[in-house]
């Protein structure tokens, strides 16, 4: 019961935050000096063509009405038109969103279990060579720019060894066998960064639990190390580990931006970067809102899962 109420509150707060973000996205662009009609049509446009454009694009209506319309059509899946290419944004985004989700999902699918295993292993065998090795490598992976990891992999695997294509060309109707070579390097690059965070945080969460007195008790009872970890410590670390995993998946969703650029992967991140450079406001607004929604949704899931696996924290 508590849990449902807590979940409801978190979701309501998340929706509210999204509304605030959408308003910020809309009104800050609105507040910019300069006329979007002139920006599109160029300096040579006559007043008549500008007026016609404003009417066609609905720019002549009051700002609050336009915000309401924009939000309503956004929810309905109509994202407006790109300023630069005049194309429908939903069409621009559709395939790319799918590509990005594939990339993120595949990465999460193997990075999450691997990181949890390595994190638990380094907490169990704390202070051993394995732990120190994992700790050093993960610290290095965190401290290094993602594009560096990407290009090193690219230089070794694609260029030196010539095993995989260096550019990820994606087209409609690709079979599974065609997806694999395209995804290996981008996924590996993202997995490096995300896993490093996840391993360190999983280890920290487990080490924290392992210092509780009931673990000391279990040890004094003479239980084996493995039994202590899997029967006593791990169930109590599920809650922090859950939130760690979802926080990092949220991070991963944003991390795709850089990786997509490195591997010229046609995803949402690449579209966002291109549109920022062109100052294509409607596309930037739409992609930013999608990224923010994903981020907030994952944070809510992380909160709810954390609470569900630790009932004591819900009352607070």
């Amino acid at each position: 019961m508590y849990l449902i109420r807590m979940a409801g509150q978190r979701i309501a707060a998340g929706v509210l935050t999204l509304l605030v973000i959408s308003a910020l996205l809309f009104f800050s662009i609105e507040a910019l000096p300069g006329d979007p009609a002139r920006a599109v049509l160029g300096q040579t446009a006559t007043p008549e063509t500008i007026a016609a454009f404003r009417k066609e694009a609905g720019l002549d209506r009051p700002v609050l009405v336009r915000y309401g319309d924009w939000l309503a059509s956004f929810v309905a899946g109509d994202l407006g038109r790109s300023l630069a290419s005049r194309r429908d944004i939903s069409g621009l985004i559709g395939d790319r969103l799918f590509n990005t989700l594939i990339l993120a999902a595949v990465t999460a699918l193997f990075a999450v279990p691997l990181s949890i295993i390595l994190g638990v292993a380094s907490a169990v065998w704390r202070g051993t060579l394995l732990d120190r090795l994992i700790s050093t490598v993960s610290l290095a992976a965190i401290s290094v720019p993602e594009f560096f990891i990407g290009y090193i992999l690219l230089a070794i695997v694609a260029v030196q060894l010539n095993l995989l294509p260096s550019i990820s060309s994606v087209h409609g109707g690709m079979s599974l066998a065609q997806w694999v070579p395209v995804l290996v390097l981008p996924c590996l690059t993202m997995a490096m960064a995300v896993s490093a965070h996840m391993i360190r945080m999983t280890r920290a969460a487990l080490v924290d639990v392992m210092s509780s007195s009931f673990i000391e008790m279990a040890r004094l009872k003479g239980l084996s190390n493995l039994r202590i970890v899997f029967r006593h410590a791990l169930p109590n670390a599920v809650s922090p580990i859950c939130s760690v995993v979802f926080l990092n998946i949220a991070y991963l969703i944003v991390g795709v931006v850089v990786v997509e650029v490195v591997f010229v992967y046609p995803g949402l991140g690449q579209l966002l970067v291109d549109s920022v450079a062109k100052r294509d406001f409607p596309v930037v607004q739409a992609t930013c809102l999608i990224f923010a929604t994903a981020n907030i949704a994952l944070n809510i899931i992380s909160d709810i899962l954390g609470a569900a696996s630790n009932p004591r924290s819900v009352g607070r």
Partner: protein
Amino acid sequence: MLMKGSFQHLSLRVYGAAAIVLCVIVLALFAPLIAPYGESQIVSGMWESPSRDYLLGTDSLGRDMLSRIIYGARNTGGIAVMATLLAFVFGVSSGFLSVVAGRVVDNIVGRIFDIVLSAPTLIVALFSLTMFGTGTLVLILVIGITEGARIYRVARATAIDIDVKDFVLVARLRGESVRYLILKELLPNAFVPLMAEFGLRFCFVLLFISTLSFLGLGLQPPTADWGSMVRDNADAIGFGIFTPLVPAAAIAALTISINVIMDWFVSNYGVARNEA
């Protein structure tokens, strides 16, 4: 006084890291004296391989890679320092103000930063750069605000710990001003944890600026910058030329070194390191 008796704990690792950081600082300060060629001087053909004249070869426009890396230390490092400082002034002052100036201020400032932090930093930055266009000033301001929001949380938490101490209560009872409380009571006592935070934040900012530059949205050409150098010359990697990786390696070496130094600093002064 803090440093007393702690030098014997210095390991080889820390010495190495300090040497790298020092080296970058020297390169940044004396770039025009050290660099063999000018920052945007075209000296040869495109992607010339390393030779005695051009130790790291040339870039996509025929400029000397080594010289640009040296100038890059100055540009990338300088802007990272400025952005981090701004973020600190901003985050620490608002964090301390939140604690000292009462609940109303605390709530207002807190909610504003909550909104800044509810969206991913990269997304906030990309959106701001769309609005105001790419430029060094915009870059510094955007990072100052987004990173400032994170520092705000640390500074506020640190200040709350200090605020409950008796000497702050005494100062309050003496009727000292908010300004006095922040500058004379909170700041000196929060110095060590904030120093540790500074190192970590600097790494974040450096990586962030490099990432934005790599995406073509940070420092603009012809300014030499470690991130955009990788971007401009990335195509060369496809031809088996690996010098474009050197600026990326420079970023990595600098951030890893700072991390090593901060680890040593934290373990010596017992400040809790927060993973973020």
